């Protein structure tokens, strides 16, 4: 469904993404693992088409067509969306309205149900504003609910588990499973091996390069053994790259 072919991005004379090859299939949950600053969020922004993250080299193929020149909204209309790690807040916009902006299809889940799926009671939240009065965790759950309301073909979730209490991790996993059951693919950026384990495939990044792609067990083990204890993040050992 989406395939990145030799994608590179340079910012401020620094190579942030370095010849990325990545393929995500329909209804696939694909985890992206990596330490801080290894290019995970940049990868998300590049796929979503953020203006400050236009690729220098390579192709982003969506159903075989290069979407590199499409803007964010055009990509969203194709069925891509992104949930930011730290979602924006909107003064004066209620949760009901915010979720309503996402819900386009008649067959999508009702927004009340989307809220319940992320553990928020609709009557307590629908009329609240998506503003600074929400806690960080509440805001992230609402972002997840809005992705659910949209039921995109590809949901890019940038660390949906960060800043969420551990008891709520199950909600995130359930939402991801609901998305897939509805026909979505999910690109899941996470630090948490427990969350990454629900994926069908996984990729580990370092220095904007793919270190490993494969089964979640294999990649998670690699990440646990090599990346977590690594004292030189973004300077991957040559032997690790050669083994890729």
């Amino acid at each position, binding site marked *: 469904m989406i395939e990145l072919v030799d994608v590179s991005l340079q910012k401020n004379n620094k190579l942030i993404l370095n010849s990325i090859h990545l393929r995500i299939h329909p209804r696939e949950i694909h985890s992206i693992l990596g330490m801080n600053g290894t290019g995970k969020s940049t990868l998300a922004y590049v796929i979503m088409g953020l*203006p400050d993250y236009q690729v220098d080299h390579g192709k982003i193929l969506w159903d075989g067509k290069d979407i590199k020149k499409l803007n964010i909204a055009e990509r969203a209309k194709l069925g891509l969306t*992104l949930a930011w790690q730290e979602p924006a807040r*909107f003064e*004066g916009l209620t949760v009901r309205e915010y979720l309503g*902006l*996402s819900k*386009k299809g008649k067959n999508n889940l009702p927004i009340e149900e989307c809220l319940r799926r992320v553990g928020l009671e609709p009557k307590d939240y629908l009329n609240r504003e998506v503003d600074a009065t929400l806690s960080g965790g509440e805001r992230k759950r609402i972002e997840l609910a809005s992705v659910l309301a949209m039921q995109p073909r590809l949901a890019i979730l940038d660390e949906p588990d960060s800043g969420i209490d551990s008891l709520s991790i199950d909600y995130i996993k359930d939402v991801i499973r609901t998305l897939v059951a509805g026909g979505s693919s999910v690109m899941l950026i996470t630090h948490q091996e427990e969350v990454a384990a629900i994926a069908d495939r996984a990729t580990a990044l370092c220095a904007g390069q793919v270190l490993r792609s494969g089964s979640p067990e294999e990649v998670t083990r690699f990440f646990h053994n090599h990346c977590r204890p690594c004292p030189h993040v973004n300077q991957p050992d040559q032997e690790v790259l050669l083994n890729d």
Partner: protein
Amino acid sequence: MTDYTTEFELLARAYEASGGNLKDLQNKQYGLMLVSGNKLLGKNEIPGLSIASTSLADGIQTKITVKKNTIINNPIHLCFGVIPEEGVQRIMADFIIEDGARATFLAHCSFPNAVKVLHIMEGNVTVGKNALMEYSETHYHGAKGGVEVLPKMRIEVNRGGRYISTFRLIKGAAGVVNLDYAAALSEHASTEMYAKIYGKRKDDIQVKESIYLNGAGSKGLAKSRIVLSEEARAEVLGEVIGQGAYSRGHIDCMEIVQGKKALASAVPKLQVVDETAKLTHEAAIGSVDKRQIETLMARGLSEQEAVDVIVMGLLR
């Protein structure tokens, strides 16, 4: 006796166009005053509410009183307007909310055909001990921008009282706006003052909100949200003076500039007189936040649709 039926209908229609519900004006449970130019077209007093008024050459003088310990749950509607293209309307209003009383006023100011209209509001507000007054003023201007609006309110909030005001001018062109609100607060009194204005064309907007935290434990917030397009200009002057012990004040100003020739400025003034007072301010002036736009675009909205949603939320 003069027949004001046509004028009433025109003003009522303008009120409806500004988002008001006509049934509210006909509901006898609601307090009401309806003024076109210098003519009192109608009023409705309810238990605990008295409305006295005198016609002036260029407007109306009124004294509105909510009696001691009266709690009025339904909003009291005040409809002001000038229907012709030209005219002056001066409203000299005294609001007295006696001790322990509570009331909400919805003032609707409609100038749908204005080419050259001057609207002056000179209000004196007294909020009694432990009383509450909410005052929301919404303007509906035509597209020509020929309105000069000069709202000036002097507010006194007594011990434990609370005053909340919202000035909203979003529909039509603002014209010239010179808003000047000043509130003096006694012990444990509080105020929240909101101004929400959408400036277009060559609108010239000045917002001055002053809060004098005179009493111990008093609290004040002045919050303004201004959006400017085309060649509109705005200046926001927020002033808080902390004289009371442990008084707390905050100024929050956000101005969004959309036009290349639009101009925004903000001048906060914080003055601590009592060493235990604490005053803060925040101001953000510039374009619409990029992350907000990108977020809404990622849900399928075009850039312009995203900006419209963000702006309308801010001004709500």
